[in-house]
């Protein structure tokens, strides 16, 4: 049980590549912190720095009131679950879990108690004598968790632990991990690139991009009030529609805008906040005229991909997110307009997000 603080943490590789560009945040005791971001954003590197597997170029990492920069991984009082589980292939499940405890010189009876307790929690009791290769993916995953639990560490570190599982198992294990963490009340840091995992697991969510923190907050705060266009398009699926507006258009749209300058900006609206049934909104919302290009029926909901009739282009914050000019509308059920039809999609004013033209700042409207 411990707070974890990162103070201006940086990592520069010998080649000069700056992987982590100064990160500050604090995780309170018992919180579940999720680091999320696209691949290459430095989230795994940051986790490995907390674990002690990567050196810290500058700054401080503090676990439970102790700066751990120079402390060996084994002495940091952490436990880590790896993406490929990293189980010892030649050891039984029991020994995989007991190994770390034995290395610490813990008395045998206590090791036995802890391992059996963990095995019971994780429903591994009947498998203690098996080798990892005799287990399914989900069971291996649980052994990896067990190895972390028996240590009773101050901090759990998870490095994309679910990405090797199939979709169904991933959802089940996600819930398991959350329940387990709630029960053990151990501070946890969890790395993932899956925004759904991030949203559902996190007490505090850290969105990272390019070695920097884009936004920190509770998942719903981040969803409701993304600080940058990057966060806006990364959190939420499908991503938020982003539409470039000129300064004049902004002033026309938002009469009460306090900014007088004729600055251009980016308007954001989530697919789920657009509706094609309602009439034009009277409260200062927007209406988009769209030509339907494609339909995706998921069952409970349907995604309508349309291009905007007018000339303005929607911009995408990260390449490959949304083609220019395309807008996604999420509608409930399976009834969708025909392809090629013209539709009007409207959103209320309080569902609109406005960002500066470079996408780096959120503007309150």
């Amino acid at each position, binding site marked *: 049980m411990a707070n974890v603080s990162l103070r201006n943490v940086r990592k520069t590789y010998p080649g000069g590549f700056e992987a982590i560009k100064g990160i500050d945040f604090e995780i309170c005791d018992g919180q579940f912190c999720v680091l999320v971001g696209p691949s290459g954003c430095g989230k795994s590197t940051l986790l490995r720095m907390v*674990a002690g*597997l990567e050196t810290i170029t500058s700054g401080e990492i503090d676990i439970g009131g102790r700066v751990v920069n120079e402390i060996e*991984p084994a002495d940091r009082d952490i436990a880590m679950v790896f993406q490929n589980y990293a189980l010892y*292939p*030649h050891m039984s499940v029991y020994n995989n879990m007991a190994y770390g405890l034995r*290395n610490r010189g813990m008395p045998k009876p206590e090791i036995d108690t802890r391992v059996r307790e963990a095995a019971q929690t994780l429903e591994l009791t009947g498998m203690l004598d098996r080798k990892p290769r005799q287990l399914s993916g989900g069971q291996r995953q649980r052994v990896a968790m067990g*190895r972390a639990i028996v240590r009773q560490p101050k901090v759990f570190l998870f490095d994309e632990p679910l990405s090797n599982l199939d979709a169904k198992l991933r959802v089940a294990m996600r819930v398991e991990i959350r329940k387990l963490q709630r029960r053990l009340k151990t501070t946890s840091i969890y790395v993932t690139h899956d925004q759904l995992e991030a949203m559902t697991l996190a007490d505090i969510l850290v969105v990272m991009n390019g070695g920097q923190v884009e936004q920190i907050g509770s998942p719903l705060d981040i969803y409701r009030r993304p600080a940058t266009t990057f966060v806006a398009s990364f959190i939420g699926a499908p991503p938020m529609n982003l539409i470039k507006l000129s300064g004049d258009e902004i002033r026309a749209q938002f009469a009460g805008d306090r900014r007088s300058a004729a600055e251009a900006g980016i308007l954001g609206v989530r697919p789920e906040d657009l509706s094609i049934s309602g009439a034009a909104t009277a409260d200062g919302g927007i209406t988009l005229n769209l030509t339907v290009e494609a339909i995706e029926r998921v069952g409970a909901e349907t995604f309508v991909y349309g291009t905007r009739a007018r000339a303005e282009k929607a911009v995408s914050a990260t390449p490959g997110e949304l083609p220019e000019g395309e807008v996604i509308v999420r509608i409930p059920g399976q009834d969708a307009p025909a392809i090629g039809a013209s539709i009007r999609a409207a959103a209320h004013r309080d569902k609109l997000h406005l960002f500066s033209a470079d996408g780096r700042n959120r503007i309150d409207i």
Partner: protein
Amino acid sequence: MVEHRRWNDILAYAILTFGVFIVVFPVYVALIASTHDAATVVNGNMPMLPGSHTLENYYRAIFIGGSRASREPVGHMLMNSFVMAMGIALGKIVISILSAYAVVYFRFPFRQTAFWIIFVTLMLPVEVRIYPTYKVIADLKMLDTYAGLILPLIASATGTLLFRQFFMTIPDELLEASRIDGAGPFRFFKDTLLPLSVTTMAALFVIQFIYGWNQYLWPLLITTQESMQTIVTGIKKMLTTTDELAEWQLAMATAILAMLPPVAVVVFMQRLFVRGLVETEK
């Protein structure tokens, strides 16, 4: 799928059978020769069926030696060969696994250089460096000792390369998990690398045991006492006689005996050996 054609199959089997015959026939002749008395073997008409002197020949070969007093019995030569082959095989495994561990897992200055120097020794087998090696062993007063037989043959790169390749297939996360589990370099080696390397070690053991067992030139060069002779050089000496008939029946019995330990090693370690070469268990 290769199409099966009757005549192709027959031809293939015929060629293979012929090949097996060529390889096996001399061994068969040796086996037959070792069961006859000296007169039958040297009269020029080699019988194709076993004779009646089997027990006598093998008893003499193992415990007494040839008719000349100076000749060592095979039992002792087998022992020498066994010590040498085991020494080379085990010594090589120990040296190779340690050097491969150093080269793969430790960052030290001139690591790559060290690896390349080890690699270059591949091009310097004993036969090439035989004079300097002889000089070194002689200066160290290791002539006619087991150490002299074993040490120069241990130093080569094959094993190091084999272990290095194997270690590089072990995922880094295993090392990291060990570090988090509080295992230092020694514990990681003992608890994780060694158990995972068992099949590779078995493969190397088989190869090196046979390599050591079959050494001819080096033992011939540095052993002068009969009591340090290995079986491979011993067989040769049995056939070099000046004023009497070579005892072919004893030489053949010795040859058959000399084949047994390597065959036993291959047979007993075959399963581990094949797994070590083809499958990496991770």
